[in-house]
């Protein structure tokens, strides 16, 4: 709640960007809607931003602006890139292992994935490889992420996988601040895995972009 905020006026003074640029970047979704925080002050309503995030984002936009169009930048900074990915490509570029690709073909019967679905696959891939979950449990993760990930994309979120007396389940937990999910379970339930979704999505995004550049 009390994260460090910066007012719009201070932001413009500090960075030297204009109102036009700020509104244009908002319109093109280079700056997420959630970062525009309205607070009332003695002069009326005023807009504030999360200081570190907005300053980093403006720096990023300025660096990319040299050789990318605004739409391309929007595509890169978007937490859920509007892309469709082919299973074939994910396999070819070693983003997920062949075994996971095969599981997806059989269990989900899909060749083309959204970003959230690809993220689910990469999480499944990681958890299978380190032995935390077994194949029959993969579907739980797949269903959870493909349906609900988008809603959590802007926030720090963690996937928590729990097992109790032989049955398993998982949940997405959003953290108010960075540093992981704050959640506890009854003593009999074992938290088998916690996956930092923000980091996983970031990593996947980079690899997908590299893939796009290579092809």
């Amino acid at each position, binding site marked *: 709640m009390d994260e460090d905020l910066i007012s719009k006026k201070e932001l413009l003074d500090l960075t030297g960007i*204009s*109102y036009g640029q700020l509104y244009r970047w*908002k*319109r093109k979704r280079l700056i997420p809607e959630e970062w525009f925080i309205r607070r009332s002050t003695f002069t009326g*309503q005023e807009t504030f931003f999360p200081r570190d995030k907005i300053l980093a984002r403006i720096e990023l936009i300025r660096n990319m602006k040299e050789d990318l169009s605004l739409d391309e930048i929007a595509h890169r900074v978007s937490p859920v890139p509007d892309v469709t990915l082919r299973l074939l490509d994910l396999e070819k570029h070693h983003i997920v292992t062949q075994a996971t690709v095969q599981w997806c073909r059989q269990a989900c019967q899909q060749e083309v994935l959204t970003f959230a679905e690809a993220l689910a696959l990469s999480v499944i891939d990681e958890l299978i490889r380190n032995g935390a979950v077994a194949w029959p449990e993969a579907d739980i993760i797949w269903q959870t992420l493909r349906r609900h990930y988008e809603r959590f994309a802007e926030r720090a979120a963690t996937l928590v996988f729990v097992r109790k007396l032989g049955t398993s389940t998982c949940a997405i937990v959003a953290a108010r601040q960075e540093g992981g999910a704050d959640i506890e379970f009854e003593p009999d339930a074992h938290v088998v895995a916690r996956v930092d979704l923000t980091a996983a999505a970031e990593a996947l995004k980079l690899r997908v972009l590299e893939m796009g550049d290579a092809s």
Partner: protein
Amino acid sequence: MTSGRNVRLSGWGQLAGGAYEDVSIDGMAVIRGDVQCNQLAVSGKCHVRGRVRAERVHIEGKCEVRGDVEAKHITVSGWLTVNGNLAADRLEGRGLLRVDGLVNADDLELHGPGRIREIGGGRVYIASERPRWLSFLPGGMRADSIEGDDVYLRGVTARLVRGGVVHADSGCRLDRVEYRHALHRAPDAVIREAEQA
């Protein structure tokens, strides 16, 4: 973004939301959800119960949109009401414009009256005065806040105006103006406080 078909509605009709190529409405129509299209042209009366996303929006009649409107180029010579936000690269208005949220445009030129909660963009040009013989009618443009790099206002009532260069011409009633470079004011423009910030 263009997928689907052309729709031309004249008379009275309803249209499901979805993706279209060009939508043109001559009569009276209800669009029952979000529309995404290349061009939306309304010369009759239209009620959209969702959002509008288009390359071009052209309103000559009366149009009411429950959600947001987003387009590259919007022209209004009729009457447009938007319950959400309105975003465009270029917005030209000669009719009546009412927006409950934010109007965000790179280049905005409005000549009619209206009520807009917030306006933000690069060039903001609003000339909204009535002829003197009509001055007994309620009118003009009212906004809560207006922000832009190059702001020209005539016949505008606003609580807060912020800009690089601000021109406040006749008929303006502004509670507070914050400008970076310059403020030009007509003798009969009412500005309660102005500050170079």
